């Protein structure tokens, strides 16, 4: 049974002539254990899709089944309980409550579950430990760096042991170091069996995904399975001017990508042809090293 099943889900805003379509009859099935990257230009409906899947927004039409249960027409409180028990949401702007300490922020979902204070705090500390902030529990959000804030937010999303983690541009406000930290955390979560759904503008981050979904004008334009550590094929097309391959790129697995690209001449990445020759030479050695895992 699929974890997420969207059938002809639409989301409309406004009325009459002013109607705008945020989601246009989207069908999407996501199995337990997938790590899905959602890409697409601004206004393509990525965030709306996340909000609908995360049960913080309602679809105008269509059916949504979450782990077999129809949730598209649930009332406010039932949706709240579904969110609380099944979904962990990570926002671009962290959304920590400024007047609560890190550990209190993490414990918040447990509070709404009705867990007693002692157990709540202990679980929250364990979770902070897991995201590497075991020594920052008593800090307030303003005393933490962006990456640390997002780590706290991830700990909060995880604390209820949800099946589904939804991250709406989790690295959008972070520098590259913090982004890596956050994405590594997310992929760790994925490896422990959670389903992860994340929106990103950065094609590099599709490496962490097992599947990439491309959206445009509220519809899914392309949907592909990728391997971990691999940038999605369409993602490559929208990558910024790829620099000449360097030793560092090799380490990051870029050379491998290039070699794959060489094989698929139909792939929409014409700009990279110049580097083909160079990467082809290393193909055999690097592939063996990079692919597994």
């Amino acid at each position: 049974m699929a974890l997420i099943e969207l059938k002809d889900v639409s989301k409309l805003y406004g009325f009459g002539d002013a109607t705008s379509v945020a989601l246009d009859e989207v069908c999407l099935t996501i199995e337990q254990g997938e790590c899905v990257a959602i890409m697409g230009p601004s206004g393509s409906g990525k965030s709306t899709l996340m909000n609908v899947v995360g049960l913080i927004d309602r679809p105008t039409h269509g059916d949504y089944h979450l782990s077999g249960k129809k949730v598209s027409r649930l009332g406010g409180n039932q949706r709240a309980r579904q969110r609380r028990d099944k979904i962990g949401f990570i926002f671009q702007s962290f959304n920590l409550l400024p007047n609560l300490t890190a550990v209190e922020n993490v414990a918040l979902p447990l509070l709404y579950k009705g867990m007693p204070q002692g157990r709540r705090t202990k679980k929250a500390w364990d979770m902070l430990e897991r995201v590497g902030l075991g020594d920052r529990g008593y800090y307030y959000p303003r005393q933490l760096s962006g990456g640390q804030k997002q780590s706290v937010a991830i700990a909060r999303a995880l604390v209820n042991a949800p099946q589904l983690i939804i991250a709406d541009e989790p690295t959008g406000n972070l520098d590259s170091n913090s982004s890596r930290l956050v994405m590594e955390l997310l992929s760790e979560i994925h490896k422990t069996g959670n389903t992860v759904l994340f929106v990103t503008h950065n094609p590099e981050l599709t490496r962490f995904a097992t599947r990439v979904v491309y959206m445009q004008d509220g519809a899914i334009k392309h949907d592909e399975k990728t391997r971990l550590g691999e940038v999605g094929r369409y993602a490559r097309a929208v990558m910024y001017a790829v620099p000449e391959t360097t030793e560092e790129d090799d380490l990051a697995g870029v050379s491998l990508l290039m070699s794959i690209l060489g094989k698929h001449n139909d792939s929409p990445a014409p700009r990279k042809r110049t580097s083909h020759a160079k990467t082809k030479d290393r193909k055999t050695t690097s592939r063996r090293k990079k692919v597994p895992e």
Partner: protein
Amino acid sequence: MSLRSENLRLAYRSLQAAKARSFLTMLGIVIGVMAVSLVVGIGQGVKQQIADGLKQFGKNVFVVQPGRPQSNGALFAGLAGARSSDLLTAQDLKTVQKTAGVTDAVPLSTASGSMTGDYTVQTPFIIATTPSFPDIVHQPMLAGGFFEPSDGSKAVVLGMQAAQKLFNNSTEVGQVLAWRGHRFMVAGIFDNFKAPPLSMEADFNDAVFVPYTAAQKLSGGTLGIYKILAKSHSSRDMTQTISAVNDSLMAAHGGSQDTTVAPVSVVGDTSSQTIHLLTMLVAGAAVIALIVGGVGIMDVMLVSVTERMYEIGLRKAIGATNQQIMRQFVVEAFVLSAWGALLGVALSCAVVGLLRAYTSLQAVLVWQVLVLAALLAVVIGVFFGSMPALKAARKDPIEALRHD
């Protein structure tokens, strides 16, 4: 319950985060509670004072006043008595005295004129009465005694304030004052009359008591009496005595009912009733103040809810139900109004203490009213506080998150 204590903690924090605003809101409730409890407290105190003032009359004392009795008893009769044409006469006094069952009757008349005391000239309130006045009005003396029949018409008795004014704070007996060219000797000085400040009774503290006969002579033969205080044989047969007095006065006046005879307690009751009425009226206004305080809380909660729409959206996004959000804000409103009520009660106590210490108003704390006002404040605060909370709780999480 953990959620409840968590909510309390949250409420304290968010109120602390907006100290000035929270304080101002609380002020509305504080003032409301204070207004209610002080108004009732002062009213109650005044009533108590009137009751105390009446105690100086015996239980078997009744009053004769000019004017036809109204349905409201002696209250308006007393006002009617202010018309000089309707005063009682010395003849009426005799009629009362002669009626069976009446053991004693003293007139109270006012006379005019200035009095020259020790270097000072004053125009005190001059009351002409007879030597048996202290038999009916039990009032301790500060010095000396009331004038006796043997003193003839040359002795006066002073109220405490009058003595202070005329004789420069000296309370010695035997000093001499002049009134209308005659010299009078001070026979005694009354201790402070516990005259109720709001009663229509003349302020005896500022009065000079002169013998009725002397005053009559000096005012040219006739001196109207505004009130006759009389005493029946015992308190049991007072009703009979009163109707007997009424009958004999009617007979003397040719059958017309133009005087009012009533027990002192009734006179006191009517003024108590007036004060009670006034108290209720002002207390009603104070309750409105309290409700306005509640509206103030609604204002703050509305601002608080709007300011924290994002927080509400987030809390809902991570799984808070509408009720849980609602509870958080209700607890906040509760904390706000409960502190306001407590502060109001504390301040009322302080103000009542100050009033008792520094003014003649013997205000009292009516604990029922304090409790009621505090409870009302909390109920009003929570009621008005919940309305914005309800609005907040009903928001869709995405709507609340987008709100800016």
